[in-house]
């Protein structure tokens, strides 16, 4: 974290709760840099999160108002908070399991209603905090604590899902491309209405170790090597496409 962003961190923090090599610290930095660019007063910022490792990105780290909610329900809480005080710049940061599995209904309905929220999904493709169980974003074949033989179900394409539900802006970038990720978050924050950024953020502890990527360099370079353009992704057959990350803006 550069010193310039420390102004957004909460006083009295004991240190990071993230594992060594977790992508969420990079994502925290990206969120703060994007927030800094839009120039909203600190007291007008509200960060809302659910339950899980990603929910700890804003809470307690960011020194604005933070609402650390129930598993899956961050978007519903944020909807109420935003509508009751529309001047709050309301940003949801939470994980893929939280936002899109247990919380999937709230996500698509907020997109449908075009509530003025930015949702940033810290997407590590696994349930991290609870011990590496399969998520609705886990790639086919990937091993998890509940799929030791490899996941057999297709993952969501979150940007397609949220775009179809009516989001005004959707984008996907990995934490391995921080400048593009910051630009995308900034764009999402500047756009009125419901916006969504799928931030691919690798989990070495629960995903990497089970999938021959305990080595951080291997984990991060694998994520980077799987990034393709949306056009390249569309040209692939479904099985191949589901093993790649289509990177870019989808509704812009």
């Amino acid at each position, binding site marked *: 974290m550069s010193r310039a962003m420390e102004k957004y961190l*909460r006083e*009295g923090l004991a240190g990071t709760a993230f594992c060594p090599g977790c992508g969420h610290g990079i994502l925290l930095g990206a969120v703060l840099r994007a927030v800094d660019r839009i120039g909203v007063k*600190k*007291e*007008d910022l*509200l960060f*809302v999160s659910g339950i899980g490792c990603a929910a700890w990105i804003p*809470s*307690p780290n960011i*020194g*604005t*108002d*933070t*609402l*650390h*909610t*129930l598993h899956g*329900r961050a978007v*519903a*809480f*944020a*909807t*109420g*908070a*935003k*509508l*009751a*005080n529309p*001047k*709050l710049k309301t940003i949801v940061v939470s994980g893929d399991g939280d936002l899109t599995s247990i919380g999937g*209904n*709230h996500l698509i*309905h907020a997109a449908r209603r075009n509530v003025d929220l930015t949702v940033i999904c810290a997407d590590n493709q696994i349930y991290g905090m609870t011990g590496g169980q399969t998520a609705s974003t886990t790639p086919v074949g990937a091993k998890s604590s509940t799929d030791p033989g490899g996941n057999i179900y297709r993952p969501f394409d979150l940007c397609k899902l949220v775009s179809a539900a009516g989001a005004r802006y959707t984008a996907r970038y990995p934490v391995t491309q921080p400048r593009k990720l910051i630009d995308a978050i900034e764009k999402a924050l500047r756009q009125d209405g419901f916006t969504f950024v799928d931030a691919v953020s690798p989990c070495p502890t629960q995903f990497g170790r089970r999938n021959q990527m305990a080595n951080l360099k291997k984990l991060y370079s694998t994520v980077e090597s799987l990034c393709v353009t949306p056009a390249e992704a569309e040209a692939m057959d479904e099985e191949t496409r589901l093993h790649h990350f289509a990177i870019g803006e989808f509704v812009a």
Partner: protein
Amino acid sequence: MPPSVDPKKPPQTLMQGNVAVAEAAIRVGCRFFGGYPITPSSEVMMRIAQLLRENNGTFIQMEDEIASICAVIGASWSGAKAMTATSGPGFSLMQEGLGYAYFTETPLVLVDVQRAGPATGQATHVAQGDVMQFKYGSHGDYYPIALAPWSVQELYDLTIRSFNLAEKYRVPVFLATDEAIGHARENIEIYEEFEIVDRVREGEGMPFGHDAPDGVPVMPAFGDGASLMVTGSTHNPQGFRKVDDPDVHNNLVTRLMRKTMDHVDDIVETEEYFLDDAEIAFFAFGISARTAVAAVRRLREKGVKAGLLRTRTLWPFPEKQITEVGKQVRALIVPELNKGMMASVARGYSQAPVHQINKTNGYVLEPEELIEYVEEELS
């Protein structure tokens, strides 16, 4: 000859119970409603949707009851007096959110228009089957407040009181009504002036702690510049998660209990009917108390010294009042539209044996049923 009019009394207004809830909520300052349609509560939502439009408030129909209670909590932290209304199945779905509201000391009002359960049960029929869910619906130690009106007038008045208690104690308050009262139409009096309590947004101290062991902390809203940390995990007075500290957890759970339980005299309201010389007494709430008061009057005409202790507060439970009545009478009879929920609690406090009259067919108890029980079992 025209009826005499007392100039000090407000005019009578004919109103449906569920509509009265919406009207009273607006009067006491409710400016946010998040809900989901469910019989027999939907009239609350339909009326308040219109009233919030007219009063610069926010109404949102959410995608389900889980989202509804979460939106209400979010709105409350944004500074709005917020409420929802539901019935059995929806109330069940809201329990996790209600535990969160309790643990984060979030004021809100939930109207539960009880219907016959379990499960989908009889959606359009009356019951009083949620007695235990008000108190034990969420996991963990949990001391919310539940008020029980017995008329449309009281639905109006206790809606106001629910908001006032929620704001005063920073606690979720349940308005424990039922299909019979919610759908009844009665004349009510609407007063021009009444007490309105608002949460303390500015002041000394931390938002999640208090020097007094039963204290209610200040509650700044989002946007007030307080850098709030609201979390449903165990937290210290400032709001930092402290999930491994035994003292922080115990202190928090204990203060939250004492916040309501040390103030039962302020919260619990009961009424006594013909109890002075009563030898047997009914203990009842809500629509069943109306049945009981009619039964008591007729038993008195027959020379039976019957009385009624009626509670307007389900939780905290009126322990002291039951204990007192239990010392005086030879039998305490609890009529209710379930299999004996209130009776089972009353047994813990009444020295006199507790009898129960239960009806679970989707209809209210008739006074004759109570009179017959007394004549057959207690004469």
